């Protein structure tokens, strides 16, 4: 893939804060996009309003705590995932993207000082020697969309490779793994692929990679010694949803199951604010009710059999840990028969680490 052409098209200009300009990420960006206007912002300077758009890339350094626990959802079971925010924003353009509702600063922001996060993760790992630390960079941005451009993941992979209790996940809807395959010290790095039937990808996932591309990338990752994970999230229901999802579940049979670190399930949900900013999509015609966390979800009576069916089909061939993202205790009890703390295989990855 010609990354230079890809990113040239993606962005029209680059801004960097003065403390980010000498970073290796900034050097890489300049190398790959030599013709793009590159402006360094002085102290207190801001990106001019006319360039505060999704076509602008902003390189800066992070403020405050760079590694935090996923905020979870009130009244719902949280998987205690830790997030290192490297990217703020995404250009993929998925119709259901929750960031549409939350983010009001449009330039795609990259926090280039990854060492700070790596150091913090190492501290957390040392503070929790007997606990599994799951940490990822894909909370408010795609982990790999900009990685060939900025090259931030490599230092995470190598920097965390010596920590046996850290599972560092790169969650993505792209297939941009090639530049990371030859890294020798991989540790427990997990390439996480968000999955949906190709029809939904075509209609709702903007410029994200195709299903085949993602699965091929997963295959390459495994063959090069990485762990992988799959995220059926969001599961979008419409008439005949089974025809799209069941063959997709079956496709996972092709992977060595012991290399799948985990599989997550999450039916489509949205906060009220998202619906206010998104255009009408056919899947919004389904029935949604407001839940304890204020988010709208399919009726519980609809969600439970969907999750059960996913779980049943996955269990036919996989012993990988399967969990639900942001679901209620009621749904957990009905689908799994227990809360994750009482489920062998999930208990370790749901443990809340100290300091995160």
């Amino acid at each position, binding site marked *: 893939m010609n990354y230079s052409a890809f990113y040239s098209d993606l962005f029209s200009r680059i801004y960097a804060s003065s403390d980010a300009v000498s970073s290796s990420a900034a050097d890489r960006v300049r190398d790959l996009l030599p013709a793009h206007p590159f402006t360094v912002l002085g102290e207190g300077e801001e990106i001019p309003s006319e360039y505060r758009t999704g076509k602008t890339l902003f390189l800066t350094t992070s403020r405050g705590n760079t590694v935090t626990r996923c905020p979870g959802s009130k009244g719902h079971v949280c998987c205690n995932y830790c997030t290192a925010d490297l990217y703020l924003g995404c250009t993929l353009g998925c119709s259901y993207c929750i960031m549409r509702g939350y983010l009001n600063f449009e330039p795609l922001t990259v926090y280039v000082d990854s060492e700070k996060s790596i150091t913090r993760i190492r501290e957390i790992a040392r503070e929790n020697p007997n606990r599994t630390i799951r940490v990822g960079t894909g909370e408010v941005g795609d982990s790999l969309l900009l990685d060939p451009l900025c090259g931030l993941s490599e230092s995470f992979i190598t920097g965390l490779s010596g920590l046996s209790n850290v599972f560092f996940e790169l969650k993505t809807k792209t297939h941009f793994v090639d530049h990371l395959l030859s890294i020798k010290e991989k540790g427990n790095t997990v390439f996480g692929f968000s999955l949906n039937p190709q029809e939904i990808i075509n209609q709702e996932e903007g410029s994200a990679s195709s299903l085949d591309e993602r699965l091929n990338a997963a295959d390459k990752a495994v063959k090069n010694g990485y762990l992988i994970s799959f995220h059926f999230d969001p599961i979008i229901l419409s008439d005949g949803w089974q025809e799209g999802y069941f063959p997709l579940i079956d496709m996972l049979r092709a992977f060595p199951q012991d290399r799948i670190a985990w599989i997550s399930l999450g039916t489509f949900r949205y906060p009220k604010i998202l619906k206010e900013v998104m255009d*009408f999509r056919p899947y919004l015609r389904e*029935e949604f009710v407001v839940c304890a966390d204020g988010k709208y979800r399919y009726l*519980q009576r609809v969600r439970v059999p969907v999750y059960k069916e996913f779980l049943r089909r996955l269990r036919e061939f996989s012993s990988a840990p399967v969990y639900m993202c942001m679901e*209620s205790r009621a749904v957990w*009890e009905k689908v799994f028969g227990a809360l994750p703390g009482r489920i062998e295989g999930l208990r370790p990855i749901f443990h809340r680490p100290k300091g995160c």
Partner: protein
Amino acid sequence: MENHTREDLSKLSKDYDLFDRFFVYDRDLLLNELYPPLPVCGNTLIWGFSILQKAGELGMEELITVPVEGSPAEHLALALNLENRKDRFTQGEIGRITEFLVKRNLLDAEEKLSGYIFSSGGFIKQGMQYNSLPFHIRKLVDSRFCDCKTAAGIRDFAEDHVSLLMKLQDILTFAERRQMCLILSELKLGDKMDDSGFSDFLEEVAGEEKPLTALHKIRMPNLTAMETAFQTFREKRLKGTGITLEHPKNFEGTAFQIRFSFRSEKDLLKKSRILRELSGCTDELFSLLF
């Protein structure tokens, strides 16, 4: 100060005739010349169109004017200042002000002008949104049937849909109308109704005693069916027993709640018997949750 004849003033440019006419000076004030002088720049009347109109109705021949200089943005600021209706401009007026600025490439004047229009925040985005609406949809905003954003969601409704909607103006509150528009747009788009089918549908809904409730039932058929099944169960098993049964909100959760009070041992035994009978048919209830 100068005097201009009403006839002369009527011939001046109406570029700044941007405001609705509901702010009208009292007859006596006008006849006693107790009104702000009308600012005029060359052949353009900057403000006072409602005064001019009222003066015509009163048969006044002359009006007091004052010559002013400045740029179009300064003139507009003066007009807005004299209008003195911060936070009370209609969407239509905001749309016209925005259009005025767009035509003259003066959008960067927003910051200076906003303070005359709103206590905080800009107005151009709102004005643009209003101006992007088809004329028949603007009617919904002008008549305060709904806000601009809600109207934008139903921009593809035909004129007769709008007329049918307007019939509900006095029956529903503003919040209910907003909710109604949202549900209607989802139904129209989601069910791909053609215009004629949608008109029939709207007519039917508008004829309901409680249109929003009726619409909600159509939008949420499964939830409605669950609610009905629950009510039927409760009626059949517990009506007149003094025992109340509640389901979790939106049928999200694992537990139903029962409440009762008792006044004697006999009363308690009676209620226990009813509960024992109820325990034999809870599958019916739990099927509503899972």
